[in-house]
């Protein structure tokens, strides 16, 4: 039973990782940018979630507002910050993104205060007891939400025109363009969806911790990078599996490897081993 419960806890953490990392891998797949500032959008989602929930009492509305606002902001970020430097060497965008992330964290601190925010009356806090396991509704929602989002995304990618356009653009932008795909629109859509998912993750994390802090994004900022690499950069399905796997590994590692190394080190030790054996990532295809 202990192992099952630890496994579930790992899946919860993994779902959060997945929601954040999917956006990151979408951006990487399309633009070859390591978008660190993505974690800043995740944090903003958390703030909007708390503010809207407290003002209106509706978590659903908060999720919607956070997703739309942050999604639009993600598009704006692309337009203002990334588009002009797309043709530069990759480290340029990486550093620009890091700068942006630091600035975002500081803006949150100045605007919302250094102590962070908590829900006045956090929703979904009641425990559900399943076969002797205690889970809060929020934790169940995270797992359920993660699964739904991922399924929908997979469906969209396979079955819709937008999905086809996206895949075509990732595979060969020039070719895609010559087939009449509006690659610029694909990019905007990409940033919108990725950022909106990160915002939802932010709202859910805020719910589980009942705390949003300016530095809330610092762990996801590098953990998500590790995940998308493991998943084979740009590969959505691989990223999802890597995220869940890392969540589970960390859950067990925290308990059984705690004396050896901390959570971050566990994640990265795993990453380095995988990369040395499979340089294209755990699930990536050979280029």
């Amino acid at each position, binding site marked *: 039973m202990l192992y099952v419960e630890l496994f579930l806890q790992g899946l919860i953490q993994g779902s959060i990782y997945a929601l954040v990392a999917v956006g990151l891998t979408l951006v990487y797949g399309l633009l070859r940018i390591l978008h660190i500032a993505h974690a800043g959008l995740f944090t903003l989602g958390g703030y909007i979630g708390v503010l809207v929930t407290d003002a209106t009492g509706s978590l659903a509305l908060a999720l919607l507002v956070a997703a739309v606002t942050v999604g639009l902001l993600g598009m704006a970020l692309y337009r203002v910050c990334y588009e002009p430097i797309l043709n530069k060497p990759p480290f340029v965008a990486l550093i620009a993104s890091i700068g942006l*992330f630091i600035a*975002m964290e500081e803006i949150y601190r100045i605007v919302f205060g250094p102590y962070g925010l908590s829900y006045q009356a956090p929703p979904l806090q009641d425990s559900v007891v399943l076969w002797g396991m205690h889970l809060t509704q929020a934790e169940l929602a995270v797992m359920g939400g993660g699964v739904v989002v991922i399924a929908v995304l997979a469906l969209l990618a396979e079955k819709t025109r937008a999905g086809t356009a996206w895949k075509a653009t990732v595979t060969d932008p020039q070719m895609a363009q010559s087939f009449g795909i509006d690659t610029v629109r694909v990019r905007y859509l990409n940033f919108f969806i990725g950022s909106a998912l990160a915002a939802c993750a932010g709202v859910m994390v805020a719910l589980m911790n009942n705390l949003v802090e300016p530095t809330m994004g610092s762990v996801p900022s590098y953990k998500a990078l590790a995940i998308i690499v493991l998943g084979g950069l740009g590969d959505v399905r691989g990223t999802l599996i890597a995220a869940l796997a890392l969540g589970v590994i960390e859950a067990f590692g925290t308990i059984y490897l705690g004396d050896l*190394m901390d959570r971050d080190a566990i*994640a990265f030790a795993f990453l380095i081993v995988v990369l040395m054996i499979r340089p294209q990532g755990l699930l990536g295809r050979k280029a």
Partner: protein
Amino acid sequence: MLDAYHISLLTVMGISVTFALSLNLITGFCGQISLGHAAFLGIGAYGAALLSKAGLPVPLGLAAGALLAGAIGAVVGLTSLRVRHDFLAITTMGVGFLFLGIVRQQDALGGEMGVSGFPGTGLDKEGFMVLVLAVAAATAAFSLYLKKSWLGFAFDAVAEDEDTARLLGVDVARFKLAAFAMGCAIAGLAGGLYAHNVRFIDPDSFGFVESITVLSMVVIGGIGSVWGVIVAAAGLSVLPLWIQFIEDYKLLIYGGLLFAVMRFSPGGLAGAVAAVARRGRTEP
């Protein structure tokens, strides 16, 4: 002459310049990006601090720290033979976290409590500053020399296009390892100086943020440009101290500056200066 405050500022600058130039060797000259360079600063710092605590003379401790950092750097360099570009960036970032994770758990290395109370250099503040500046100057001179030497050309070839270099018969692996070993050894030396300057080291001082900071110095200065990196490292290392009077907005400005330089002058300072010079020449 200089007062103690400016001596301490110049010391901080000198250490940062040395550290940034060491990354410039790897990232600037040889084109191998690293997001975990602070680990080598840390290895040098821990080496120097623990060895001098164990009774070794300070110069030996500094040298041993640098050698250790260089040796581990060469091992980490092996990964660059296996993965490239973004993958290498993430791998080196992982190395940084592994270093921290290991140090945190080892009581012999001070664990979470860090290391303090190790013997000093015996130099006064001014003397120590001179030592630091001398090391920085020597690193700069070495960098300039390297850039012009055959080794520098080989690095250049690897950085430009390693597949072509390989076709031309350049032993890519050897040069990559050489760059990592040299760069990390110098970072280790900078770390030793850091330890003797702050007189207290803990794992948090060598984390991801520090790796990002030094990479920013290199990139803002102009990747590969020795002079640009010197100016950027000197400036950025004391920037947070200069802008004390705008307290609340300090990190915001730092982040904004990083972004702005990349957005508007991706060649860094060196690139901007070159652009201005070009414009000056073409104007009548």
